[in-house]
């Protein structure tokens, strides 16, 4: 017989024990409104929305909604009242070309040539940073009492250069060193000081990334290497470092993309006409920001391939890292 509170048609409440209130066992929300079945009647596990039910449906939905949002944004941009002016100030093809080529006689320099300077600085700095940061990380990881003072120095170094803003470091080195009139050191070009400052500052950050990588190598790897009778240096070089480095490729890449852009800061030393500074000079001479757009595009052309290549390296290595687990 139907119990109290029984709901829509199709529900057959379970018989309840005498003396006990009627139970609608296990269906707290009532029967499924879509299928209309009871607890195990109909298809209780079927997805509610038709749109998400099939793989194809999900793909179509996500594509359409993505296009719709992007389309909305582009439309809003193109139809905004100030759109024409913004486009001519930021995306003016003629000015972008002029900025790319440069014209010192009119008072501005080539952004295209400037980016070569960024690349040069970035490549040199990157190599030096990878080396210096590794040294710092190894010093910090060492446990021998002989290296204690160096270890303390390394900790202070990392704390200091991670704390001080990079631009101040560039100023201090780029303006301070020449003012000291030290032999050789005070007579370098601004690019040398700029790259030096980048190396000193970034090594502090990257050394921490190395440490994370070194700590991530399972201890039994080191133990295996030691038990085979390999010297610590050999174990480090052939067993630990290769694994540590493979683990930290993503954060390393992050730091290097940052580095690519931070090369722009070297321009504060004055004589370094890299891409951003060239764009800045262009914009203030011509009153047009299209130079910055060119610089941005050039930086993207640098960063994106690097990111894809790194993804490729990671994917190729992923399987090998998991040896040892059954």
């Amino acid at each position, binding site marked *: 017989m139907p119990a109290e509170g029984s709901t829509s048609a199709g529900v057959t409440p379970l018989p309840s024990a005498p003396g006990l209130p009627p139970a609608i066992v296990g269906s707290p929300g009532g029967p499924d409104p879509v299928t209309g079945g009871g607890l195990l009647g109909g298809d209780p596990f079927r997805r509610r929305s038709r749109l998400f039910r099939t793989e194809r449906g999900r793909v179509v939905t996500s594509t359409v909604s993505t296009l719709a949002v992007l389309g909305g944004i582009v439309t809003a941009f193109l139809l905004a009242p100030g759109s024409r002016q913004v486009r001519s100030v930021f995306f003016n093809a003629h000015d972008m070309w002029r900025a790319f080529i440069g014209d010192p*006689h009119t008072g501005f320099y080539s952004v295209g040539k400037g980016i070569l300077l960024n690349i040069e600085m970035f490549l040199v700095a990157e190599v030096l940073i990878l080396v210096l940061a590794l040294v710092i990380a190894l010093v910090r990881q060492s446990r021998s009492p002989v290296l204690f003072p160096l270890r303390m120095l390394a900790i202070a170094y990392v704390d200091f250069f991670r704390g001080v803003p990079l631009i101040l470091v560039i100023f201090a080195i780029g303006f301070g060193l020449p003012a000291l009139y030290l032999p050789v050191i005070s007579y370098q070009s601004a690019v040398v000081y700029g790259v030096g400052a980048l190396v000193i500052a970034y090594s502090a950050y990257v050394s921490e990334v190395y440490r994370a990588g070194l700590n991530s190598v399972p201890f039994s790897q080191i133990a295996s290497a030691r038990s085979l009778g390999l010297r610590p240096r050999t174990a480090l070089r052939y067993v630990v470092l290769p694994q540590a480095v493979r683990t930290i490729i993503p954060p390393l890449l992050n730091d290097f993309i940052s580095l690519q852009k931070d090369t722009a800061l070297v321009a504060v030393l*004055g004589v370094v006409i890299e891409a951003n500074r060239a764009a800045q000079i262009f914009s203030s001479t011509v009153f*047009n920001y299209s130079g910055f757009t060119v610089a941005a595009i050039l930086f993207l052309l640098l960063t994106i391939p690097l990111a894809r290549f790194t993804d490729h390296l990671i994917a190729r290595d992923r399987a090998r890292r998991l040896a040892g687990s059954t």
Partner: protein
Amino acid sequence: MIFRRLAVAVAVVVAGTGLGLAGMSVPSGASPRTEGPGNTAPLRSCTYSAIQPFLYSPGHLTVATDAPAYAPWFEHNRPSDGKGYESAVAYAVAKRLGFKPSQVKWVVETFNASYAPGPKHFDFDINEISVTKTRAKAVTFSSGYYTDEEALVALKGSPITKHHTPAALKTYVYGAEIGTTALQYINSRIHPIHTPATFTTLNDVKSALVDHRIAAFVTDTPTAQYIATTEIKHATVIGQFPVSNQHYGLLFQKGDRLVKCVDKAIAVLKRTGVLHRLAKKYLRVYTSIPVIKP
């Protein structure tokens, strides 16, 4: 159900378009100051009352300049005391337009922002800005209120003070402030073999000279003189370069209507000798500065 979702997606696109179209019918900046889609009111006369609707803040003349405001264009970094060439010119223009000095309001606008697109929050910007054709595409300039000459500043006793033949001039490392025509001048007339150093502000240029990072820098003659006589005592103006025919102009938002009236005011100030008198008073242009050829 898929239709419901599609309908939502379409609605987003339609809404975006609709907002855009709706936006178009609202005049930009909602002011008659600039030429824009919804704005047709012409500026018929330059009387005090006629220009009110075309002001940024009616009842006031809003003037912008950079901070710090350098001498001898301003004094003590206080544009509002009317001293310094540009400060005085601004008040003179205001007076011709019918404003009392107390109605002139000063705001800060950095040089790099002054030419950004979009509505400005001032009536005009006075900041030693050279008028060029290219720049006039992005902003509107008044007629010139000062003809700019470029001069060369170096430290006393440095090699360039003795050796500045055209050939010798090529060998030095020069400094220039970004956004000035100095860089163009150095590259197009002097043709140095070393790329000149560029600095974001004039203060950076001065430090570079004092720290011996540059041999000399180029800037306009009044500024050069002020620096050499007052700010950096051991600096000297080596000479002026020949006439360049560059002018400083007041900077307005592109399409601003007020500029017509301002140009009339400037013409009057020129004709009546006010500009010349102010230049003599504040810029102390010495005709005894030697002219050096690049």
